[in-house]
Each structure stands twice: as structure tokens, then as C-alpha cells.
């Protein structure tokens, strides 16, 4: 029994598994639930929720001006509460229950039929209620991430509507394609914890959204510097700790696959911070606190898709590259292209997600994903499997294209319905007072 559960734990997400699953019924009943796996994934679920509430809310609050501070926290909060309900009504079912290569089914509409005994075959070692909740926390943070790009100017009502539509039109399909039995998973795309589904997705959506909304008033001329960066330090710290649940939890069990993922995640974050800090110190003479934080997030986002497939020394490389390239993207590239992605969701998550997804195709170590069903695991370019890198590139392109087009459409619909942007006067007074009737004193 222990052996079986251990191998299940080591198995995690692999192309082979996913391909195999597509044929089998997605929901099962049975005494396969493992106590230790349940204990860890329950904890991981709490950790990933902690990443949004209050992690991301704090990171974002720490980068905006005083008059917009509560508003950006409110958007993160609203994303959490809204996505949670919609996920349980239909999102979970459409993503992870049955269905074909494009979209899941409505068999668990309103979670109908979920009981204490039911499990999802994608993680038959866990109660289905836990699997659904764990996956929900990923949907929450992806939606909340987008708020950073449009901070300081998007109407609260517009963001709420956007979150609801974007969840179903962008997040749910892409998550299904990669993780839920859809075509990207079947083609063998490796994405352990969300390089495509979470980071590229949020980054590209953010870029499109900030282009559609236009730059903040005063961008490039006025001083838009952060009010209280210490909040961003707290936020980044909680994101870092929570990421143990994000990547470690994606092993869907307690075991060495999870702990190795956590170790490489931690090293990716550390090297990302070091990379950005070094680049900034070198080019600007001072290592800024916001730079260090940004580098850590860049490292975390970038290592995410690779975290279950690479060894610690790969993480050192991936993290360091992430820190330096994302620094370049958020400074040189952004200024050159002249878009106003307020809190650099694209420059960090979008760019990091692409690097990480491709790096997975380069560095993947077969032994880390090997299982009885797939004894060779999923090796990457360095182990001679150049095809994997190609698959990764396809995954990146598909994600970018679908996300960009669909996000654009969603934004236009929201604009028609409630208007995307507050008035210039409201922007000047601050979203806190104009959207919520409150203000920091």
C-alpha cells in the first residue's frame, strides 16, 4: 500500500498520465484516499490562498500611490470571492471533469454528486473536495494577477465583470487544455504548476488590458512612486512562502516529488532576486528593494512550470536568468514599447512564464517524472529530447494567442456594458474614495 501511494506521489503531472486519463472515466469512488497526501495538499491549498489573500494584495498595495491603495486590494479580494463561487458552480467541472480535448463537462455543475467518498481520477489519492479547492486557488490568483496591469484606473464594477468573464473564457479552457485532459497535455506539454496556465496567461492578459485601457494619467511625467513599499516586502514574502504550496502542492501528494519541487522553487526565487539585484546594482549603482522583490517574483514565476522536472542546479540557472531578463523587460523593453503596465505583470509573469516554459523543455530530467507507467519520464533537450522543447514552444504560442484574442474581446464587452475606465477626475481623486468611499488617513 505504502509503495503504491509513494509512486503515486512521485508521479504527479506527466504527459503520459494525462494521455492515459483522457480515456478513463474522470470521476471514481474508492478507498484510495491517502491521509498524508491529504494532509499536505490541504496545507498547500491554504498556502496558495495565502498568496492572493493577503500576499498579492499586499504586493500590489505596496506599489501604488496612497489614494489607490485600498482599491487594488479590493480587486484582489473581489477576484478571490467571485472566482471561488464561479469555480464551484461550473469552472471546476468544465476544467477537470470529463470532456474532450477542448473543454470539460458539466457533470459537476454546482458540484452535484460530490461526496465524502468521491475522488477525481487526476488525483485519486485525494478527496475530490480537496482537489477542487486546491485547483480553485490557482484560478483565483491568476485572475487577481491581472489587476496589477490596470491598477489606478480601472472601474471596480468593470474589474468584477471582467473577472467573471475572463475566468470562463480564458482561464478555464487553457487550464483544461494543459491539465484537465485537453490537447496541450495530450501533446505532451510539460507545465508542472502553471507557466502557461497561470503566468503567461496573466501576463498576456495584463498587457492587453493595459493597452486597451491606456496609460495612467501622469505616466512618464508625474511622480507615481509607491506610497509604502514595506507592504510590498510583506506581500512578496507571503507569495514566496505560499509558493511552496503552489509548486510543492502540484505534486498532488506528500513525498520527494513535492519536496524537490519546493527546493528548486526556493532556489529559483533566491537566484531571481540575486540576478535582478546584481543587474540593477551594476547598471544603476544601487540595489533597490523593489528590484530585489521583483527579482524574487520573477524567479518564482519562471521556475513554476519547471519545478517538478528539474534539479537544484538547474534552478540556479533558471532563476538567475529570470531575474536578469525580467529586469531588462521591466526597464528597457517597457520604456521602448511605451505601454503602461502599472505593476509589471507582463514584464515579470508574462516574460518569466515564457522563459520558464521553454526552460522546462531544455532542462527536464526524465528520472524526476518517471513512474511505473512511464519508466523514462519526460526528458528535455539536455537529455537529448529536442522534441520536448518544440512542444513547449507550441504550448507558449497557443496560450499567448488564445489569451490575447479572448482577453481583448472580453475587455471590449465589459467596456460596452459598464465602461472600463474611471473618469480623469476620479483617477485624480483616487480610486479609494471614488470607487469605495473610503481612504487611508
Amino acid at each position, binding site marked *: 500500500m505504502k509503495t503504491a501511494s509513494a509512486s503515486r506521489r512521485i508521479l504527479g503531472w506527466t504527459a503520459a498520465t494525462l494521455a492515459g486519463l483522457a480515456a478513463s472515466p474522470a470521476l471514481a469512488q474508492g478507498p484510495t484516499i491517502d491521509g498524508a497526501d491529504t494532509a499536505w495538499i490541504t496545507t498547500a491549498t491554504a498556502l496558495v490562498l495565502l498568496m492572493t489573500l493577503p500576499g498579492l494584495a499586499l504586493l500590489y498595495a505596496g506599489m501604488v500611490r496612497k489614494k489607490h491603495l485600498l482599491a487594488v486590494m479590493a480587486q484582489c479580494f473581489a477576484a478571490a470571492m467571485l472566482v471561488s463561487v464561479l469555480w464551484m458552480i461550473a469552472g471546476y467541472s468544465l476544467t477537470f471533469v470529463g470532456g474532450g480535448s477542448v473543454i470539460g463537462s458539466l457533470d459537476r455543475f454546482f458540484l452535484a454528486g460530490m461526496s465524502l467518498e468521491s475522488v477525481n481520477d487526476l488525483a485519486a489519492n485525494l478527496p475530490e473536495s480537496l482537489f477542487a479547492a486546491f485547483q480553485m486557488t490557482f484560478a483565483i490568483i491568476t485572475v487577481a494577477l491581472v489587476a496589477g496591469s490596470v491598477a489606478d484606473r480601472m472601474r471596480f464594477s468593470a474589474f468584477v465583470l471582467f473577472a467573471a468573464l475572463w475566468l470562463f473564457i480564458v482561464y478555464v479552457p487553457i487550464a483544461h487544455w494543459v491539465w484537465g485532459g485537453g490537447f496541450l497535455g495530450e501533446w505532451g506539454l510539460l507545465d508542472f504548476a502553471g507557466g502557461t496556465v497561470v503566468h503567461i496567461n496573466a501576463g498576456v492578459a495584463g498587457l492587453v488590458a493595459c493597452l486597451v485601457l491606456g496609460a495612467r494619467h501622469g505616466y512618464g511625467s508625474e511622480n507615481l*512612486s*509607491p506610497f509604502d513599499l514595506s507592504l510590498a516586502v510583506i506581500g512578496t514574502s507571503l507569495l514566496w512562502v505560499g509558493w511552496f504550496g503552489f509548486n510543492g502542492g502540484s505534486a498532488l501528494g506528500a513525498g520527494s516529488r513535492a519536496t524537490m519541487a519546493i527546493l528548486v522553487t526556493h532556489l529559483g526565487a533566491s537566484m531571481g532576486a540575486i540576478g535582478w539585484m546584481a543587474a540593477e546594482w551594476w547598471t*544603476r549603482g544601487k540595489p533597490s528593494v*523593489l528590484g530585489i522583490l521583483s527579482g524574487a517574483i520573477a524567479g518564482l514565476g519562471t521556475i513554476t512550470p519547471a519545478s517538478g522536472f528539474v534539479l537544484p542546479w538547474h534552478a540556479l540557472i533558471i532563476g538567475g536568468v529570470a531575474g536578469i531578463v525580467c529586469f531588462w523587460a*521591466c526597464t528597457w523593453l517597457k520604456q521602448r514599447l511605451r505601454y503602461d503596465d502599472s505593476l509589471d505583470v507582463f*514584464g515579470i509573469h508574462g516574460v518569466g512564464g515564457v522563459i520558464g516554459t521553454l526552460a522546462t523543455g531544455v532542462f527536464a530530467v526524465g528520472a524526476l517524472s518517471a513512474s511505473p507507467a512511464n519508466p523514462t519520464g519526460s526528458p528535455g533537450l539536455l537529455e537529448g529530447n529536442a522534441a520536448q522543447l518544440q512542444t513547449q514552444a507550441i504550448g507558449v504560442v497557443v496560450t499567448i494567442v488564445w489569451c490575447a484574442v479572448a482577453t481583448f474581446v472580453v475587455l471590449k464587452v465589459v467596456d460596452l456594458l459598464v465602461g472600463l475606465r474611471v473618469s480623469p477626475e476620479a483617477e485624480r481623486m483616487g480610486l479609494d474614495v471614488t470607487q469605495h468611499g473610503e481612504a487611508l488617513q
Partner: protein
Amino acid sequence: MKLVIAVIKPFKLEDVRDALMALGIQGLTVTEVKGYGRQKGHTEIYRGAEYAVNFLPKVRVEVVVPSDRAAKVVDTIAAAAKTGQIGDGKIFVTPIEHAVRIRTGETDANAL
């Protein structure tokens, strides 16, 4: 009476207060302000966006004194607040026609 307004470096506040107390001044009012002048500010960089912080933190000390003591007060503040570095600040003197102590209703010199 005169209102002496001194804009000084924040860390000199205690020195100025002590010097004024030594002079027998019993009250003053302090405001945190930002000053713009010959002294250069610094640059802050946030993810590649550079902001010149031209306004430097200063403290404004206001003290109302009988006209005949104004010169002495100005000299005292000037001495206590001086570092000799750029940005030491300014002292201005303006007339006060009337003063009241709210608690007692005493007026003018008695109110100070």
C-alpha cells in the same frame, strides 16, 4: 510683536528648541514641511522609472515674540540651526498685530 518663521533641517529641531528655551521662550509651533531650494534632492528609481525628489524634508518653526526680542531670537535660531552646509534654511520675520491666549483670554505680550 513679531512672528519669526524658521525653515530648518529636521534634525536641528531639538537644538533650536533648546537654544530658544535657554533664551526664555516658552512656546513655539512646529510643522513638517517640504523645501525646495538650492540644495539638490535625490533620485528614486522604481523598476526603471526615475523620480527626482526635489522637495526635501524640512521643519518650520514658528515663534511669536515681543518685537524687541525678535532680533535676538533670529540670531539664536540662526546659530543653533547652522551646519554651514547647503540647505540650512531661512528665517523670516513678519509683524503680528494681536495675540490671544485661548485658555485665559490674556492678550498680546501676556499671551505669549
